[in-house]
């Protein structure tokens, strides 16, 4: 790959129209003006269908929400009018919206940290390639493979105060007999975090496990010969070598965690009260249940701005790894 890349790299450095001849001689088969123009147009033709769909389903909605955020349209109530920044003012000052933004960030921070720490702790023993671990890795995947909406439903049954296994067996152990764990804000949050950790830690574990298995053994052997302690080896060899995997897992998981919807909708519905109403549920309620499109779009714009802060990080981490020559 490295050697074949050389001609095109020289082309890119020269750039501009004058490079056409270089490109010609470098890439070999291109001949004549027609093919040269073709080389510039052809990729766009191949890209067009995918880009049209992506534009229609991401850019068009983004334009729509930026437009609607300044209006008071209501799906039921016909055409609204321009209202300036009213929706944004309400999105920022309304206490339940503020609460939504804060608990969303809190939830993401807590689950990402928990899942990264637990994921690493589980990946270390799982990375040794033994027959038992082959079974272990398959079992590890199971919670991750359960449809999130189904997982939330199952948790809801397990946590049912009258008939649930959790309440019954906790009661047998003498703790919290028959407690309605979803009826109290603190325990409801704990259950949501447990559900997320149960479902998503395996994703982190399996990424980090693959990373650990890809590490060469020589540096650790050398360190052992030099009398390094296990902690020193972990701190100075394993951890630095694992940094890219840790970073990618953390960034992907953070983005996914910000999109969490199903467990909240199904397990608590934002309750009790509005205590677990994260921004995804808030936007859903305001937009698709109260049909206040303007306010929902203003909240969406703010959410989009927060999330777009992660784009450069993601591009750098994933882009560079996938195509080291380019990014």
């Amino acid at each position, binding site marked *: 790959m490295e050697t074949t890349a050389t*001609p095109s790299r020289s082309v890119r450095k020269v750039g501009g129209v004058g490079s056409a001849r270089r490109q010609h001689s470098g*890439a070999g*088969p291109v001949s004549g003006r027609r093919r040269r123009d073709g080389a510039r147009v052809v*990729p766009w033709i*191949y*890209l067009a269908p*995918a880009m049209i*769909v*992506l534009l*229609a*389903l991401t850019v*068009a*909605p983004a334009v729509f929400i930026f437009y609607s955020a300044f209006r008071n349209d209501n799906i039921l109530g016909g055409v609204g009018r321009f209202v300036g920044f009213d929706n944004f003012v309400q999105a920022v000052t309304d206490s339940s919206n503020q609460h939504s933004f804060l608990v969303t960030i809190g939830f993401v921070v807590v689950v990402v940290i928990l899942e990264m720490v637990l994921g690493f*702790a589980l990946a270390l*023993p*799982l990375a*040794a390639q033994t027959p038992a671990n082959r079974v272990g890795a398959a*079992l590890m995947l*199971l919670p*991750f*493979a359960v*449809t*999130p*909406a*189904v997982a939330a439903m*199952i948790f809801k*049954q*397990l946590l049912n105060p009258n*008939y649930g296994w959790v309440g019954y067996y906790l009661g*047998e152990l003498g703790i919290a007999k028959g407690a309605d764990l979803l009826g109290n804000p603190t325990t409801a949050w704990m259950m949501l975090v447990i559900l997320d950790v*149960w479902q998503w830690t395996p*994703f982190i574990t*399996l990424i980090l496990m*693959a990373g650990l298995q890809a590490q060469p*053994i020589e540096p650790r*052997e050398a360190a*052992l010969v030099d009398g390094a302690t296990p902690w020193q*080896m972990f701190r100075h060899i394993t951890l630095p070598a694992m940094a890219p*995997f840790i970073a*990618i*897992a953390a960034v*992907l998981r953070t983005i996914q965690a910000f*999109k969490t*919807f*199903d467990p909240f*909708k199904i397990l608590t519905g934002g309750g009790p009260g509005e205590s677990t109403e994260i*921004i*995804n549920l808030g936007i*859903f309620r305001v937009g698709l249940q109260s049909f206040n499109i303007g306010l929902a779009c203003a909240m969406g714009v703010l*959410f989009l701005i927060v*999330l777009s802060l992660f*784009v450069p990080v*993601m*591009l750098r981490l*994933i*882009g560079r790894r*996938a*195509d080291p020559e*380019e*990014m």
Partner: protein
Amino acid sequence: MSSPLTGTTGSKVRGVVGRAFLWLWLVIGLIPILFMLLTSIKPAGIANSIPPVWLFTPTVRNYASVLSGGSGHSEGFGQLLFNSAVVSLGATVLAIVLAVPAAYALSMRAFRARKRVSGWILSTYMFPPIVAVIPIFVFVGQLGLMDTYAALIVPYAAFNLPIVIWILRSSILQLPFEIQEAAMVDGASSWNVLRRIILPLLVPAIATAAVLTIVLSWNEFLFALSLTRSDAKTAPVGLQEFTGMYGTDWGNITAAATMIVAPILVLMVVLRRQMVAGLSFGAVK
């Protein structure tokens, strides 16, 4: 045995603690799945009895009842599973058809905008579905497509495109460039290079991307909840309606849940490595 992984006594103790934690996690993690499977085969009447019944004669009556539309459901659950299958497969075919040429274009060395376009496509992955669902709800309504398969197929394909294009593009970049070069020297057009040379070599990557898209579409909830009412309703949305005002039949719910989860569980376990590699955008091989 003095490999760097199992050296001193201290690290042996740590190893035991680590393995104990791992297996404890795995066993506890199975409980919800075990609960689902067990409850789904319990005879009527004991599904939610307390204390939980552990010894019983297994029955498939819950499955039969759910599929035939029993206990207060107007439509059989089979129809919802069928809808889920149509939508997932439709989205997958559309995503692959769109992604293969796009990934090829983004692997072309002479295509100077490829870095920027790849970056843009990757960045759409962070676009939160909740922000897209309101405009798409409005668009779909105006197009008269509410509660149709198309209303789900196109968004699902679009939201999986970044991952699919990324998977295909990295596997094209891993192919030896000489193969393409040789064909081009022989005068093959880029279309022929794609169709006759790259496509056959890309089959494993396409399979991975396809399974990933099937799984993510099958599992999707927000769009299905917002854009369907009855005709195109998918299984995960239908499952939520089992908890009606006439009480809850746990046997039925868990039987339906098992039918949703089973195909995905099998696919994921069989293709574990490919799934994780795909979901991490090929960052993990």
